[in-house]
């Protein structure tokens, strides 16, 4: 039986680009209006900023400053360790108070390496703005990528994947579509909405910069239709205020603003690409594999600021909301600001607050303390009451009802994956495409048995990754050992050969008096040098292999 067709074009009165519907997903109540009543509030500088060295997916950044050092705003504090990493800059001027382990916003609740910055209140850039790029309407991709990397820009939608990596070409594949993700499908979160309303020009200009560099055939900005003000603001920024026909997605300047039906998780990268283009990003690949680059609208704005104003990524907009917050709103804060400061700015907690979540109610994680800092990927601080999001009931056995199958946007069989994850049968889990799971939480949300499915999937993925790493390590050790054996054998052999040669030379020397003994000695010395060099060169290989675990591609 052929797979059910996935292409249902939505028909509307006016011609628009055809939209596609992915399987499953959920209709969730938005709860967004509470936090969009007031404009974005810029918070005053706190006394201290805590800057984790790893605010992104990939390797931690490597510190370039020492405790006690004075730094300017925008000064680089740590550089991206490897290809998949991101630099870190001082959000304001001050003194590096310490470098050490502090609690960070991570589901594990553990501490990690951070730079602590004592702010001096001057907010002084010194000489540390990156040189603004004038001709940004004709930036070449290499330069754009370098700037994005320099500015430490990562995906602002929550995943915090280094943007430069996403802009890197993938083999021969040409980029034909650039997508800006303004879907913001998860309930409660409204920071992208507010960004688009208040800084529409930055988003549109960012889109233009990316477009000029990537030269795609088209650029689509996807926004869920529960954000009419954001859509109107972007339209105005794109085509002037008189252009406000909400019923069209007409292309202007190569850019189309496409309202999307609100449906969780439309904002998931793979889902959004599918909705807008009908293309499926391979489960093991990147959007560039199908000729698409997808960036969050916040990322586009950050690119604009890095290119035209020379500002690295040092602040972000965060939604502070939920029934546990007295006055929900959006705030713009320097990275490293403690969550508690944001909560205070939003009127503090209400009495009924029961849980603190970083991110949204579907994919966010709870944090035990509000002392942890805001990082590049923090889009929302959600403080909820027990009435609002009651604690889940006791977990019952899976009754195989198939609800999870019905809602899974990745077309997985979550109940089957759960079975394998629980039995630690990771082989079967991989056969069932565990790694295609985007951890959207739809399955766990509908499960009548209250099974924390996503937790099981994360556990299984982590186990498989660590097994993989172990295997890699032992492979490496084995290779190193084999190489050492080989080198020793070779050295033995060469030594024996040299001895034999010497002996032969000695034996023939008296006979061949015409041979210059000096020449022979030089020859022998050269021989030795060559042999040692060969040995040394070989000896370096294991160290290289040791680094091969990282991804050196750039």
């Amino acid at each position, binding site marked *: 039986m052929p797979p059910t067709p996935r292409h249902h074009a939505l028909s509307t009165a006016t011609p628009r680009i055809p939209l596609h519907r992915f399987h499953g997903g959920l209709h969730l109540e938005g709860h967004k209006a509470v936090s969009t009543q007031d404009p974005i509030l810029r918070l005053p500088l706190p006394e201290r900023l805590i800057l984790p060295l790893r605010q992104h997916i990939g390797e931690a950044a490597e510190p370039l400053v020492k405790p006690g050092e004075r730094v300017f705003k925008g000064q680089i504090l740590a550089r991206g360790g490897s290809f998949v990493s991101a630099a870190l800059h001082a959000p304001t001027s001050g003194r590096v108070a310490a470098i050490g382990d502090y609690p960070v916003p991570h589901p594990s609740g553990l501490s990690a390496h951070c730079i602590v910055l004592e702010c001096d209140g001057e907010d002084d850039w010194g000489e540390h703005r990156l040189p603004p790029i004038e001709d940004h309407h004709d930036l070449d991709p290499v330069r754009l990528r370098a700037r994005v990397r320099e500015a430490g820009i990562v995906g602002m939608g929550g995943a915090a994947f280094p943007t430069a990596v996403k802009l890197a070409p993938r083999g021969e594949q040409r980029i034909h579509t650039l997508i800006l993700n303004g879907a913001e499908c998860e309930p409660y979160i409204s920071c992208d909405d507010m960004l688009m309303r208040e800084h529409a020009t930055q988003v549109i200009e960012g889109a233009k910069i990316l477009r000029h560099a990537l030269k795609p055939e088209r650029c689509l900005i996807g926004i869920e239709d529960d954000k009419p003000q954001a859509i109107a603001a972007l339209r105005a920024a794109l085509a002037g205020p008189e252009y406000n026909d909400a019923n069209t997605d007409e292309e202007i300047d190569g850019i189309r603003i496409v309202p999307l039906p609100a449906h969780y998780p439309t904002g998931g990268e793979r889902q959004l690409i*599918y909705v807008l283009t009908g293309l*499926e990003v391979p489960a093991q690949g990147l959007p560039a594999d199908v000729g698409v680059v997808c960036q969050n609208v916040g990322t586009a704005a950050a690119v604009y600021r890095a290119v035209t104003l020379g500002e690295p990524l040092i602040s972000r907009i965060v939604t502070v909301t939920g029934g546990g917050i007295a006055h929900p709103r959006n705030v713009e804060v320097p990275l490293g600001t403690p969550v508690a400061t944001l909560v205070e700015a939003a009127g503090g907690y209400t009495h009924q607050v029961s849980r*603190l979540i970083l991110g949204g109610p579907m994919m966010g994680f709870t944090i035990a303390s509000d002392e942890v800092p805001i990082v590049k990927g923090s889009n929302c601080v959600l403080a909820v009451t027990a009435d609002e999001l009651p604690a889940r009931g006791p977990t019952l056995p899976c009754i195989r*009802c198939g609800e999870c199958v*019905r809602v899974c946007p990745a077309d997985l069989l979550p109940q089957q994956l759960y079975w394998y994850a629980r039995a630690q049968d990771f082989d079967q889990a991989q056969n069932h495409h565990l790694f295609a799971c985007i951890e959207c939480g739809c399955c766990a*949300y509908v499960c009548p048995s*209250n099974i924390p499915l996503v937790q099981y999937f994360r556990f299984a993925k982590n186990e498989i990754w660590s097994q993989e790493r172990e295997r890699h390590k032992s492979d490496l050790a084995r290779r190193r050992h084999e190489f050492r054996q080989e080198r020793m054998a070779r050295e033995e052999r060469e030594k024996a050969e040299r001895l034999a040669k010497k002996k032969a030379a000695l034996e023939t020397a008296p006979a061949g008096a015409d041979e210059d003994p000096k020449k022979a000695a030089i020859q022998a010395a050269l021989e030795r040098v060559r042999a040692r060099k060969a040995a040394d060169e070989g000896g370096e290989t294991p160290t290289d292999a040791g680094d091969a675990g990282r991804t050196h591609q750039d």
Partner: protein
Amino acid sequence: MRFPTVTSPHLTPPHSVGRVMTQVILALIPATIAATWYFGWGVLINIGIAVTTALACEAVMLTLRRRPLPPALGDLSAVVAAWLFALTLPPLVPWWIAVIGIAFAMVFAKHLYGGLGYNPFNPAMVGFVVVLLSFPRELSLWTIPAVLAEQRLGFTDYLNAIFLGHLPAGLTWDALTSATPLDRVRTELGMNRTLDEIRENPFFGDFSGRGWEWVGNWYLLGGLWLAYRRVIDWRIPLAVLLSLCALAAAFHLFDPGRFASPAFHLFSGAAIVGAFFIATDPVTASTTPRGRLIYGAGIGVLIYVIRTWGGYAEGVAFAVLLMNMAAPTIDHYTRPRVFGTRRGERDAP
């Protein structure tokens, strides 16, 4: 400030097992009332006996397995299984038959496999098959539907009959009971009568036996409501009934004298309750969307085959149990294509 930590998602689920089971019970109520009206108080008394026994067995087994009682007892799955089991029993069946059947179902078909969610076979049908094989005579004695009966028993008469085996003075079992429509057709076809002759008997109504066809309608109503509420997947009942009707229609057209019409098959015996309430038991059914179609179609075909050529007049229980056995295999071969993958591809971490 300190806060408790839990895993995502944080939105609370709209469903719970208890809620699902409650809706199934609600959907069974119209048909239960209809059955009580047509076949007597024995229907309700059987449900009472079966439900009590099921809950008692569940409690005992949970205690023996050292599991906490409240979540498992509160999920109502035992009540649903017992209710369905009771509805398959003739209303005048002695009490101990109901007890044996449902106790076997709970202990052997459910808890010894690990409890709810782990049982490969539908417990209600296991219980029914056990008593059908052990007590075939008792299981064939259905009360005559109200529309035809000259004598109607009161509630206490039923209690006396079921618990003590006493009938009111002057009444015999024969006067109160008769075979089911399927049994009757089967026996009389065996005596070389044609369907038209058989159906002349006032016992038969428009489609099937009088009374029977009406109870079937109420099951249909409850089942459609469940499908509408998405408590059950429409695919399974649709596939069961379509395949049953398709086969019946084909053979009926071929020889209307020997093969009953699709409508007769649909409204006789347990076809509708089986399609909507029994085959849809999620634990023992297939879970993939395509698998559910295949699973349902398999049940429909088997019902027809058993009814027409098998050793029993009714085949729903056997058909469901046989397809229960096939469900894991069906699931394996009907996995949906995962987003962003090609069939047969495997993940690399």
